[in-house]
């Protein structure tokens, strides 16, 4: 008699929510970093330190370019609203 045992598991998720606003580039960057870099508690202290420094540098880059994307998207929306005749809304968006 032969049998093969297989185990399956489901992991936990986390939830991030906001009130009266969306997520900021900083909050999104933190989520993004969790997907890119994992620092093991078992790693030597100097490696952990190096990894954290890299993480901080990467976070700054991510936040900068996310902010650029937000500004660029507002330009797209500004033009879209303007071409649809919503000049007041377009102006409000431009001033954000």
């Amino acid at each position, binding site marked *: 008699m032969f049998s093969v045992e297989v185990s399956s598991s489901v992991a*936990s*998720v986390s*939830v991030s*929510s*906001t009130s009266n606003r969306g997520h900021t580039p900083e909050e999104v960057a933190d989520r993004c970093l969790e997907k890119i870099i994992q620092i093991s508690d078992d790693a030597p202290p100097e490696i952990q330190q190096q990894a954290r420094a890299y993480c901080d540098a990467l976070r700054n880059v991510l936040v900068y370019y996310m902010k650029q994307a937000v500004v660029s998207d507002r330009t797209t929306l500004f033009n879209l609203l303007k071409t649809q005749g919503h000049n007041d809304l377009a102006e409000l968006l431009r001033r954000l």
Partner: protein
Amino acid sequence: MAISQAMCTSFKKELMTATHNFTNSSGNTFNLALYTNSASLGAATAAYTSSNETSGTGYSAKGAALTNVTPTSSGTTGLTDFSDLTFSTVSITARGAMIFNESATGDPAVCVLDFGSDKSASSGDFTVQFPIANSSAAIIRIA
């Protein structure tokens, strides 16, 4: 009444009948539906139900479609993942979620997720963050 995090028993059986295909783009569509703390969900849950599903501004029944990450393996573990899912501009409260196969007949359940406590968004974003996709943390693993 409770939400117990579990991989649904029916899903384990359905893996052996090729009911589910997690391949990105060409695979099935998997949805994530949100539930209140009055829901009763767990390993015995076999399919999507609208009973005690979250309701509120910006949220529709059956939740939203997930973006599949094509299954892969790491060592002796097979795993699959989904991209984080954001319900934008919503006013809702949820205690847990169910992932189910929207493409398959009867909307069979995959797993039940317990958030640990009620989570709320008010005129804001409600984001479900999936863990990193590796052999020890991915959302769905078979070892």
